[in-house]
């Protein structure tokens, strides 16, 4: 399986504080890979570094075989690399419909956009009902759905998801995870998922990385990690 995304020895800093130490990981085409870890372990920073919002001070990030380090954040969606960032970041004063349009900002194929719009409205019927409301007026779960739907609208080859279950009820979380799985299976979208809810993440993912204090400490298939005694104790609460 060819790696669609590779990180090699990536370091990143916030001012003087080092947030990532030598992070190396790879994601194969069509895989679901998850990064689990505690608060402040550097999971979100990893995603932000991939997208060029945080600049890597060392190492390399390769996407589809080419380095994307010197690309600006806004050049990546065109390459099929989309992110659902932490905290959803819905545009609060854009309507639901406009939020979705923004997801397809770089696309010019009106027909394709219309088709995808139909698709996300089928996946999330509640968004169809609220398509004229401002994004800021939605509930937390609806906003999360909107954030994911918006990312789908970019027709990504690879989707980076940051804590999609944060602050949501277990039922909604499960609904969202089901949809992520469906999209992965049906459209072959590669997914890199960052989650605190290790339990659910490991059930969904093929492979997983465990991060602690800015570094990757463990890497294995999700199934194997679910059985790992340390992981069970530290992250799965068993």
């Amino acid at each position, binding site marked *: 399986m060819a790696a669609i995304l590779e990180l090699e020895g990536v370091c990143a800093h916030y001012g003087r504080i080092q947030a990532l130490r030598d992070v190396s990981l790879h994601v194969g085409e069509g895989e679901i890979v998850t990064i689990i870890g505690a608060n402040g372990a550097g999971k979100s920073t990893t995603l932000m570094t991939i*997208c060029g*919002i945080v600049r890597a001070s060392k190492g390399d990030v390769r996407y589809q075989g080419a380095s994307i380090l010197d690309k*600006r*954040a*806004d*050049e*990546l*969606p*065109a390459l099929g690399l*989309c*992110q659902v*960032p932490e905290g959803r*970041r819905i*545009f*609060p*004063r*854009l309507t639901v419909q*406009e939020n979705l*349009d*923004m*997801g397809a*900002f*770089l696309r010019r194929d009106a027909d394709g956009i219309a088709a995808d719009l139909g698709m996300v409205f089928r996946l999330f019927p509640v968004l169809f009902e609220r398509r004229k409301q401002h994004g*800021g007026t939605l509930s937390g779960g609806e906003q999360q759905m909107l954030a994911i739907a*918006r990312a789908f609208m*970019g027709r990504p080859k690879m989707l980076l998801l940051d804590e999609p279950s944060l602050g949501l009820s277990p039922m909604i979380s499960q609904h969202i995870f089901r949809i992520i799985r469906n999209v992965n299976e049906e459209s072959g979208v590669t997914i890199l998922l960052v989650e605190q809810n290790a339990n659910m993440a490991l059930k969904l993912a093929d492979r997983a990385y465990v991060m602690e204090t800015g570094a990757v400490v463990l890497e294995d298939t999700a199934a194997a990690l679910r059985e790992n005694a340390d992981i069970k104790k530290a992250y799965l609460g068993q």
Partner: protein
Amino acid sequence: MDYLFQQLINGLTLGGVYALVALGYTMVYGIISLINFAHGEIFAAGGYLGVILLSYMASQGVMDNHPWFGLAFALILAMGYCAMLAMAVEKVAYKPLRSSSRLSVLLSALGMSIFLQNGLMLTQGVYDKAYPTEFTHGGFEWLGVRVSFMQIGILAVTGLLLVLLNALVFKTRIGKAMRATSQDKVMSALVGIHSDKVISTTFAIGAALAAAAGIMVGLYYGSVRYDMGFVPGIKAFAAAVLGGIGNITGAMIGGLIIGMVEILAAAYIPHGGEYKDVFAFVILIGVLYFMPTGIMGENVDDTRV
């Protein structure tokens, strides 16, 4: 009665001028939360470009044969010039400070304002420049109310630009990108919006509007001066805030209210002429006291833009 109507027309015209300048303020503020002090100077530069071009064309005989063509040509060139000027100012003085505190940018803007004003003074001289006003003198009288074509022109252009601008912001791709950028710069980058370009475009559009306002003012009042941008700049800023800063229709309404209050205060209140700015600011403070986000402003979490 005709006295009242005459004063209302006067107020509408003055308000229209403020509104045109306020539009640029509000757009720039909306996108990078900057009180762009240099905006008033861009407005003055627009007025100067207008007089430079019109005088040149008059000397070449264009204005005698095709006055309307000449006017349109000057308007478009001046708008383009000011757009370029504003983009240069943005690149030089604001962009490097994008991640600094907002007050640093505010100060940089103030410095640019002083710089541009004096640059205009040095290149164009300290004396007022006279606009060719021959072809704007016309007007008509109706029920004792005198309306000049320029007054109608100002209101028409203001209205037209408002409609166009609203269409631009709400219907077009770049407009959506502007609104998205103003609400969340990181997220808009993540969906593929090049925020620097969008910000540049916003400055350019705001400046083009200011240039249009500068020419209208030059034609209506008959002259331009290098420091003409300062007072309307402050009034327009007040108008933008009154209407709810960041809101285009709000800027328009705010401009009209401030213009109207000034004129009516001068017309009806004893000593109103000298205290008219006081009335304008009192209205502003009063409105903000009861409607803290301005007339058209939306009530959003105020930790955001």
